[in-house]
């Protein structure tokens, strides 16, 4: 319930800017917004394909069957980002979601109004991490965030890079992952996409995304994955080795017996 209220707050936060700057955003802003909130690259590519292949004008485009101005798409995407991604992460790290909203509010008043700040250029944390944040374990992330003063924590969480965000999402407990996946399903439907969850476990969240024609447009996990590009041939190798050895031994024994028979 709290989250829904925050979503509404987020809409209210961005709505005035959308009205005032209806033609300020471009299609590139839409792609950037999708990237900011952690949409899979396949979703972004699909948006590009849709933009190229369907009718569009200078201020808006179709995604699925819906037409919106670029600015409206950006708002819709950020609303999803704030509701389902940033808030879940903030709550997990013990930060009040309202502080994140306030932070965005402050930034949008003083900065570029069309989007939440994408990177921490203005909010360099006072504590330097020992290794890149996106390569930390969840415990290390928590320890690092806890080491920052509260204001910096808020700024840090609000300005995570897409890769940092994906790294957190991947490692979150299943409960939070499910919450985010449910958001992705809901958000996908607004873009005319059908999102299904293939796998949720301790290390991963794998999604399949289909367009309105049912065609698979992406099948990926959150963040970069090293693909399995080799087959485990252990059983095949051991099996075939046993077969060869058994056959050779059998043939040898039969041959030996035959020879003994011939000799008398």
């Amino acid at each position, binding site marked *: 319930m709290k989250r829904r209220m925050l979503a509404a707050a987020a809409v209210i936060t961005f709505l005035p800017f959308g009205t005032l700057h209806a033609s300020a955003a471009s299609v590139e802003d839409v792609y950037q917004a999708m990237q900011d909130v952690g949409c899979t690259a396949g979703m972004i590519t699909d948006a590009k394909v849709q933009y190229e292949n369907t009718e569009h004008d200078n201020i808006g485009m179709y995604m699925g069957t819906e037409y919106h101005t670029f600015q409206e798409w950006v708002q819709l995407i950020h609303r999803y980002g704030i509701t389902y991604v940033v808030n879940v992460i903030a709550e997990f790290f013990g930060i009040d979601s309202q502080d994140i909203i306030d932070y965005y509010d402050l930034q949008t008043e003083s900065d570029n109004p069309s989007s939440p700040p994408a990177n921490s250029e203005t909010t360099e944390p006072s504590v330097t991490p020992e290794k890149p944040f996106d390569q930390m374990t969840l415990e290390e992330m928590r320890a690092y965030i806890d080491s920052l003063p509260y204001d910096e924590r808020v700024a840090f969480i609000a300005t995570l890079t897409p890769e940092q965000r994906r790294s957190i999402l991947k490692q979150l407990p299943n409960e939070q992952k499910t919450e985010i996946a449910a958001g992705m399903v809901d958000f996908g439907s607004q873009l005319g996409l059908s999102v299904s969850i293939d796998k949720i476990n301790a290390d991963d969240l794998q999604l399949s995304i289909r367009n309105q024609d049912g065609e698979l447009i992406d*099948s990926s996990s959150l963040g*970069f994955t*090293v693909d399995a*590009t080799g087959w485990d041939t252990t059983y095949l*190798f051991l099996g075939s080795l046993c077969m*060869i050895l058994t056959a050779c031994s*059998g043939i040898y024994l039969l041959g030996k017996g035959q020879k003994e*028979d011939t000799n008398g």
Partner: protein
Amino acid sequence: MAKFKPKSKVKKKKKHRNLVYYFTPPLVLMLALGICIMAYIFTPVHMVQPFLNLIFLDNHKLTDVSDGLNIIEKDIKTDNGDGQTFSDGKITYPTFGEQYAVLSAESIQLTCGVFYGVNKELLERGACQSTQSPIIGEAGNTVIDAHVNTYFANLSDLKKDDEIILYTDYGNFTYKVKNLIAFDKNDKRYLTASDQTLLTLYTCQPQVIGSPNQRIGVQCEPVSMKFYAPN
């Protein structure tokens, strides 16, 4: 005087003949099968595939295609053409499952299709480009992988400065090998986004026993980017 053979010995000999009669065919069959499986393990499967197709009258099926996966295999020209080219140009974005490029590495006699997206069905058909990485021709680190048992069986033979060409419908892109890389399956440093334009190719370290944990590959830098149409 004729040599007398005890009855038990004659019986034993007859029994042994029966053993030879019954056991030789299955043992020879087992040996042949064992050798075939070994050959299958050690031979790049895509080289065996045409023979398997012939033996099974072209009915050798690949893995069933996932629901909704639209695999598009295209005939992409692999000549440089005589037309005008541009250093910056228009990219045609592929859809998931579309073969949108041909990868050629002459030094290791490798030519294979490149599909957009990675899953097991696509990996059976060619090399695959991660959807998390930029499209060929875009700035950034384009990551392509393939099975070591099939298309990237000889990837480890690539040497520094070897040339790799990616042909697409919208241009051809030449790279040269800059680094030979090896990394663990949990190590993503070579796959992450980069400000530099790079091409990263990787596959599993060949391994007969156990699940392969190590990956090997190459990082390449662009030599020429030729687009067929301007932006």
